[in-house]
């Protein structure tokens, strides 16, 4: 078999046992790898209605056909489980050497079930899994854990391993805890908390399998073309500044959420702009393994420490919380990375709590001094969340569950979809994105579709809603699903001439199977439908595809989008157009004939 290995390793933490199982080639052709394979395996391996923190909730790592082929930006893996934050599918991506090592294990997936009695880490090789104590690693950050394990294995066994680990937040079941490797994070949906529930501190990998492709010459030719294009003008933003470049643009376009989505723009946007960070505190450029774009930027704090920063982190720990000082954002980002907290959900939950404090809805917050712009008070909350102490114990539940503790008024400004906090795209001034956020299977997500592209390109009137958006969002979701299942980084997406035709050619060359553009388009639709079917099985209701009340009742009050609103009728119209574009019924349920059409 080329591109794939055709098998998975199933590991049971309860019994400390493992088995290899074949994966049908029909499944691999139908959903590829990455999030597609992860969704498919999750559907089959998760008992219906499983509690996210129960031992039975499977934790699934998947590799993908392009991983290890030498194609730029393809060193990625997916980790899939039932999310403790949303109760629906969580599919997160991370990248770099851990991804390459996963592919070298000679499996397409790891399916980890059960729960260990004591803190444990797994050392997985192509010979099987070893269950090792992680008691000495408890409380360490993911980075420290990674260093300790790598050092131990190197010292004791003279071997190199790659490690993905959780920090304190994951150990304490913070519902938005991350899994991290080499400074990269599988950030959204609380994958790290599922690790914690299984008392699994880390997974260390060492593989020896070589990746074989069917047509080496063809793959190398495509790889050369993509590598050349990846350093052209289409990726200049990522190569020269990184995603932090978004902040100034979003602010100017009335699309930067601030103060818990109470308004936009942000008075101190200039100081927090990516351009200012580059000019004032740039430290280093980093890239994932096998990546020629190298989008990661590290910036220097006042204390001299270098910290990775991306737009979403900058938005969530900056303007969303009213924080104006660049150094405070860097310090907050550093703490989130140290504890293993998803920065978007952390910022979103704190911004919600800050508004509670402003409105006097949560008396216990009074002694924290929490208020918009009070960086020190916000920084002090981060360890409390990670340790689940004081008000942090409630905030660790995420804004949706926390709001249910505080009351109905507080629920009205908890800015989440399906329990996942919104990313830094203002839905009222980005109507296509508003729909994308509302219907996304994993909650408010900017990665599982690029719906904002229609808004930011002039393809549509971004300030107006219409019935054409459903088809745009569905197409964008399908495109993203294929990217995330091949896997190719989305920053490479504009380097293809014709994405589906080009990747069909690529997949044919890698696997030796004959793919067409039509096949791959249908793969995208199949994966998104499969995610929806999983969510339906786990209790999805039509009201889960909706936006927070604030966005549907309060117009924007300043900036270029002043007076712009989004009404419930407009959102309903767009959602219906999305269901129609998907071929689902008016309640958003997948019809039997659609399942048959997609072979589900």
């Amino acid at each position, binding site marked *: 078999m080329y591109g794939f290995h055709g098998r998975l390793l199933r590991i049971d933490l309860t019994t400390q046992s493992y088995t290899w199982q074949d994966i049908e080639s029909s499944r691999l052709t139908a959903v590829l790898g990455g999030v597609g394979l992860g969704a498919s395996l999750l559907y089959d391996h998760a008992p219906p209605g499983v509690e996210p923190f129960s031992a039975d909730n499977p934790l699934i790592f998947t590799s993908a056909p392009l991983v290890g082929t030498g194609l730029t930006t393809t060193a990625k893996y997916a980790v899939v489980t039932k999310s403790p934050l949303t109760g629906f599918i969580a599919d997160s991506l991370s990248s770099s050497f851990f991804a390459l090592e996963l592919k070298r294990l000679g499996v397409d997936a790891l399916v980890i079930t059960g729960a260990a009695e004591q803190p444990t880490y797994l050392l997985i090789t192509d010979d099987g899994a070893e269950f090792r104590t992680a008691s000495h690693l408890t409380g360490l950050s993911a980075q420290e854990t990674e260093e300790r394990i790598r050092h131990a294995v190197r010292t004791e066994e003279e071997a190199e391993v790659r490690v993905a680990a959780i920090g304190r937040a994951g150990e304490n079941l913070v519902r938005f805890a991350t899994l991290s490797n080499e400074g990269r994070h599988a950030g959204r949906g609380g994958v790290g908390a599922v690790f914690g529930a299984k008392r699994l501190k880390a997974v260390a990998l060492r593989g020896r399998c070589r990746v074989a492709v069917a047509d080496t010459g063809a793959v190398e030719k495509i790889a050369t073309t993509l590598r050349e294009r990846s350093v052209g003008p289409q990726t200049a*933003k990522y190569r020269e500044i990184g995603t932090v470049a978004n902040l100034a*643009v979003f602010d100017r376009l009335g699309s930067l959420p601030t103060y818990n989505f109470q308004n936009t723009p942000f008075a101190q946007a200039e100081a927090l702009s990516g351009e200012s960070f*580059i000019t004032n505190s740039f430290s280093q450029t980093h890239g994932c393994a096998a990546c020629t774009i190298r989008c990661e930027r590290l910036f220097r704090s006042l204390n001299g420490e270098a910290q990775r920063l991306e737009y979403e982190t900058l938005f969530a720990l900056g303007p969303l919380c009213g924080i104006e000082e660049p150094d405070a954002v860097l310090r907050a980002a550093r703490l989130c990375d140290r504890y293993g907290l998803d920065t978007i959900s952390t910022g979103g939950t704190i911004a919600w709590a800050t508004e509670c404090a402003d409105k006097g809805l949560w008396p216990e917050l009074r002694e924290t001094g929490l208020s918009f712009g009070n960086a020190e008070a916000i920084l002090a909350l981060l360890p409390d969340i990670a340790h689940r102490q004081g008000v942090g114990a409630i905030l660790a539940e995420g804004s949706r569950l926390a709001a249910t503790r505080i009351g109905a008024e507080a629920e009205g400004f908890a800015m989440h979809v399906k329990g996942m906090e919104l990313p830094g795209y203002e839905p009222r001034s980005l109507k296509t994105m508003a729909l994308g956020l509302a219907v996304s299977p994993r909650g408010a997500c900017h990665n599982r579709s690029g719906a904002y*592209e229609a808004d930011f390109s*002039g393809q549509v009137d971004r300030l107006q809603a219409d019935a054409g958006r459903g088809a745009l969002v569905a197409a964008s979701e399908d495109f993203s699903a294929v990217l995330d299942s091949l896997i190719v980084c989305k*920053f490479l997406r*504009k380097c293809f001439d014709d994405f589906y035709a080009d990747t069909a050619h690529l997949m044919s060359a890698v696997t030796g199977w004959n793919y067409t553009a039509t096949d791959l388009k249908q793969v995208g639709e199949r994966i998104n439908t499969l995610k929806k079917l999983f969510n339906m099985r786990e209790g999805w209701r039509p009201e889960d595809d909706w936006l927070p009340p604030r966005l549907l009742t309060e117009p924007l009050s300043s900036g270029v989008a002043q007076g712009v609103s989004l009404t419930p009728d407009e959102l309903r119209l767009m959602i219906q157009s999305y269901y129609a574009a998907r071929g689902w019924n008016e309640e958003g349920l997948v019809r039997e004939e659609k399942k048959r059409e997609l072979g589900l």
Partner: protein
Amino acid sequence: MGRPKALLPFDGKPLIAHLVQRLSQRFSDIVVVAAQDQTLPSLPVTLVHDAVAYQGPVGGIYYGLRAIRGTAAFVTSCDVPFLQLPFIDYLVSQLNHHGRDYDVVVPVWQDRLQPLHAVYRRSVVPHLQEQLAAQRLRPVYLYDTVPTRKVSPAEIERFDPEGMSFLNMNTQADYQAALAQWRTLSVPISCTVELFGVARLTARTSRVPLTLSAEATLGDALTVLGVECPALLGSVLSADEAGHASLQSGYTCNINGQDFVRDAHTRLRAGDSLLILSSDAGG
């Protein structure tokens, strides 16, 4: 108004000479259709006369199209001093729209078709001849007969927000107003370019004030920007052999935080802010 409209003094010369000079920036073959006994100043044009008087616009279009050397022509009356060349370019481009060929491209402005600011293929001459023979002197009959592309106000506003193209003169008051308007438009406008991302780092500034001609387009502004910030040429801007600048792939322009624009012919207004940013705005 005391004399033929074509001969009204405008910007120091007869109005017809003013129009011919403007149109000659785009067209090498210009035909002027005069009344039977009308005398005009010497112009670098093909001059033809109505064979039959009082046949209205259909007659003028008919005699003019018969005299052109090419396969299609932009047709205008002689009393419209504010022709917008980018808009005329757009009209010509619409002879083929979404893969379909049209014989006529006619704008609709203020709910009225504008037959004397339209593009016609020479192939409609036989139809016009039939109309003249039947004394059907309204151009709209032609539009019902041949494939006609009607250009909407929204399309027009992209090039000519105030509809200056259609401003004609029928009274002395119209003439005086047009002269006053001309003097206003001769005043340069100020716009600001706001640079984001790579463009800002490359130019080492976030804002560039520009002084532009009153009828400046996006293309004009980018060309001036290239002169003001030469560091942008080659990375953010490309310049052709004539020195006209355009945005490289990977970059886009937004005007005033509202509209994303790509068309170099987009007209600018005084006070506009041009945002130059990455075309990949998310991520």
